[in-house]
């Protein structure tokens, strides 16, 4: 049977745009693999320093990605450990305690914060550093701590909302059982609701890690530099993978440096892909669990 022209048109457009989109992603990934896979070896990460010496922090690494990888790792660990406790607590408030107007107003603030561009959050971090520099002696400059704090602000609304949604999605039966047996509100949250909502909260936290690892706009305003070696303290400048990729694209001196740029882009892509897969896996388990309940 011949299809009506409208159906032909819709099929053509939807298949065409799907193939176009998938092809462009495949091109991005394929291009990086093609250009970057050749430069994967220990020298890429550690330069001319023996790997063991570098890992034990005995000798500095020059010309390798090691300092940038350590910088990104410390940044993510700091930012997440600042953001998760506050995000979790605020999410619990929104789902379990907040009522009426106050809850609505708080929700509005979180939604606005979630939409603020990351460069504006970076500008805020920079301004905070300037403020501290002027009022608390001249020792504070944009640094690792300021960057981590700004990244924490960036992912905070996201963590609050995933916590809130995970808690609110729990069925009423789960919510009422423990109180009926005499548990207090806090005991119910601590021993029943949070454990049941954990997969949802966890997958949200993992996606937040990915966001901290890939964000470039925030850190370029708050203390990341092209060459700093390993971060010496919370108050020192540092290197990071995404900034290194940006820097190489604009300032590479020779083809060897460019090759490390391709490799760094591949590494960052792989990290984010793994985090994404982990979050998806946890979410899938969550889905399987809620089907079991029915």
């Amino acid at each position: 049977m011949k299809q009506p022209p409208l159906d032909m048109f819709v099929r053509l457009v939807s298949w065409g745009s799907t193939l176009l989109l998938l092809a462009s992603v495949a091109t991005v990934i394929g291009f990086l693999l093609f250009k970057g896979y050749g430069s994967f070896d220990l020298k890429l990460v550690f330069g001319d320093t023996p790997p063991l010496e570098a890992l034990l922090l005995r000798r500095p690494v020059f010309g390798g990605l090691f300092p940038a990888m350590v910088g990104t790792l410390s940044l993510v660990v700091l930012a997440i450990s600042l953001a998760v406790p506050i995000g979790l607590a605020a999410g619990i408030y929104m789902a379990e305690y907040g009522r009426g107007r106050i809850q609505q107003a708080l929700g509005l603030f979180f939604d606005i914060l979630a939409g603020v561009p990351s460069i504006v959050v970076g500008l805020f971090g920079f301004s905070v550093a300037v403020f501290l520099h002027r009022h608390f002696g001249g020792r504070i400059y944009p640094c690792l701590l300021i960057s981590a704090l700004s990244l924490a602000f960036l992912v905070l609304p996201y963590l609050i909302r995933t916590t809130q949604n995970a808690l609110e999605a729990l069925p009423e039966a789960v919510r009422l059982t423990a109180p009926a047996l005499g548990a207090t509100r806090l005991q119910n949250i601590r021993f029943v609701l949070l454990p049941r909502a954990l997969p949802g909260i966890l997958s949200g936290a993992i996606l937040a890690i990915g966001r901290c690892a890939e964000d470039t706009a925030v850190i370029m305003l708050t203390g990341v530099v092209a060459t700093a070696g390993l971060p010496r303290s919370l108050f020192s400048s540092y290197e990071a993978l995404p900034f290194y990729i940006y820097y190489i694209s604009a300032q590479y001196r020779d083809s060897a440096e460019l090759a490390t740029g391709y490799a760094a882009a591949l590494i960052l892509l792989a990290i984010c892909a793994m985090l994404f897969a982990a979050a998806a896996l946890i979410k899938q388990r969550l889905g399987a669990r809620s089907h079991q309940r029915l």
Partner: protein
Amino acid sequence: MDGERIAQKVFLLAAVLSASVTVLLLAFMVILGLPLFQGGLFLEILTQPWLPGRQLFGVWPMIAGTLAIASLAVAIAFPLSLGVSSLIAVVAPGRIARLVKSAVAFMTGIPTVVYGFVGVFLLVPLVRESLSRGSGLCVLSAALVLGILVAPTMILFFSDALARVPRSHRIAAEALGATPAQVLIYVLIPGAWRGIVTGLVLSTGRAVGDTLIALMLAGNAAQVPNSLLDSARALTAHIALVIASDFDSLEFKTIFACGILLYAFTAAATLAVRRLGRKRTPAR
């Protein structure tokens, strides 16, 4: 019972602290950019050209640059996203739809800087050679990559909205003999318009707020672009470029004007989306 009350206070404190960040963000920009608000200077800055040689520090070219790049990116992403979400909803439901949907979800996790990097070394030379004009760093290059970047967000919102249209409406149309394309165009898309507008507004917010793509691919010339092949500078890129200059100069203060503009735009987008009646945070 004391532990209960302390816990409740702690949870409330965390929520209030988080909400105060939203206010502090704006307050810091306004206070540090204070000289801008005296004697009509703010309006001048928004409308004047950027000519540091003549002591003119207007950000109008950056506003025009952002508008050009973001609107072109959205114009590229919108039909593409509508096509992909139609495939998911109607044309190829089932296994193919699930596969496409996970690929799209994965795309939201690809780092922006990676898109920018590939754009610099793959797309820019292509644009430069095929159009034999300029450096290839232009509005078109940035908008093409930015379109690919915001499309996944749009698709997830669109296909979500299409799937929410009540099944009964669909079945009724099919019973009347509607073909899949007719169901899509006369039933699903009209029924999902709120979700579609929501996705459109939030993706526009993302396109306006993105820094790296414009910074890496648009060329950053502080001029109002006259064609797709002109270099342009976005508001976000302007902040990243001027941050290194002297803190007390008027040139530096303009970045707070850019920051306030970006904040105002994205806040307005958020309010618009909330008025549409859906409370959802953008998926990154």
